[in-house]
């Protein structure tokens, strides 16, 4: 599951660097909102990466690769909630 998360984070970042996304919006999203969202997204992605390495580190020292399943379950929960 950790690998799945890693791939998702990587693809998201890649997607954002290579693709411009002009899209139709009749609503003005507001500059403040956009800057805030990019800050929040940066934090979220950074946390995701940190969490990933944290689980890897824990798994390395405990020798239990199943630790990352906990994250997998959490991810599944997020998906289920949404």
């Amino acid at each position, binding site marked *: 599951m950790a690998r799945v998360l890693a791939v998702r984070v990587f693809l998201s970042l890649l*997607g954002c660097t290579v693709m411009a996304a002009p899209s139709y919006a009749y609503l003005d999203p507001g500059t403040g909102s956009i800057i*805030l969202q*990019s800050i929040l997204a940066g934090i*979220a992605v950074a946390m995701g990466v940190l969490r990933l390495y944290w689980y890897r580190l824990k798994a390395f020292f405990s020798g239990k690769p199943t630790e990352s399943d906990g994250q997998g379950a959490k991810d599944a929960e997020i998906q289920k*909630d949404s």
Partner: protein
Amino acid sequence: MTDVSVEAGSFRDPRGRIYYVDSRVLRTVMPMAVADFDYVRSSGLIEALHSDGKLVGESLVDNTELGACANGAAYVLEHPRIPFISYPYEWPFSALKSAALLHLDIQQSALQKGVTLTDASAYNVQFVGSRPIFIDSLAFRRYNDGEFWVGHRQFCEQFVNPLLLRAYTGVAHNAWFRGRLEGISAEDLSRVLPWRSRLSWNVLTHVMMQARLQGSASSNDAVRRAKDRKLPKIGFEQMLHGLRKWITKLEPKADTRTVWQDYAGDNSYADAEAEQKRAFVAEFSSTVKPALLFDVGCNTGDYSLAALENGAAMAIGFDFDQGALELGFQRAVSSRANFLPLLLDAANPSPDLGWRQAERLGLQRRTQGDAVIGLALIHHLAIAKNLPLQGVIDWLIDMAPQGVLEFVPKQDPMVQRLLQLREDLFVDYNEQTFVDCLQARARIVKSIVASASGRILYWFDRA
């Protein structure tokens, strides 16, 4: 002869408009919306949301159904009619909260299917009983990887900020929201929230930081830089998830218990008398079987529920007390009754508002029902608010052809309490005047004395 009219509030998004053809609700889908419309329908999202009861139904109909109004439209859709349209400035806290959660649920489900919402307007949510339902089926379009949540600021202004106002200061959102139909801006809210609210990461970011960034980022350069930014999908999902978790926990500030919240246990008439009133309402309801009943001064909804259990199909309650509305809404949720309690100050009902004063309809233009009940109400309006008795009775009778109104005499302890600190100027306030006012407009079908103090219930019929 068909009567076609356009919904005056449906003009912001040029991709389609709502029309009324007699009692039917039709929507145009303009050519500019077709690509998104087809993409979203092929994603299966619309069907899934509809089967979960989250989205209003839709069916494609022939363009000719809309006559000349369909000119230029690619498709015409028909939606079932929502029996009563309400606005966020009339909703109690819990209703606004459940509408906010519905919006987030829909945005989350949409994202999974590669779809996003074009806005985050609270007016796109309506209620059937206490169940929120999304009504704008054209608010969906294809999601482009890396794009921002266009509706974020609007979601904050129309959902988050009004909820925070009540949660942190105890002040209800309604009056402010009615005064500013776009909701409460982060800039304004940041000025009134207490300092301790900054300890919340979500308040700090979605309110304080957003307000600061909006204020400092108005230069052309900042706008250009903002346009170049991207939001990774995972960041979008996490933001929605975080907001959902946070909003689920928001509650009205604890020290704002209201007088009427305790009314049921503290009122002047005994249980047997309340039971007698319930029985009268039940008899009225089972005879009239109203499709839409208005309960003015509904308190926590006792008599609405009695009517609903006895033949009424749907009840809209009105009260001015936030605590009573809150309890009423929770009762409706837990009993799954088709009951929606809304905020109303009878001396100042919602007026026509918005663009050309036609965008949001005043209460009077929405309250045409089959039945109305006004129990333990009229003395508050006639005595506490000094409203003329004939005017109050006319106003209630105008809402529906049949109803039950209660007369509370001056010797009743509740009226005595209202007169405790003031001069009794109400020389005409008596049973005879009440009956004369009623009979000037309607026939009295039946009446009963409903309390030892001499309260009387009148069943009227103006048909």
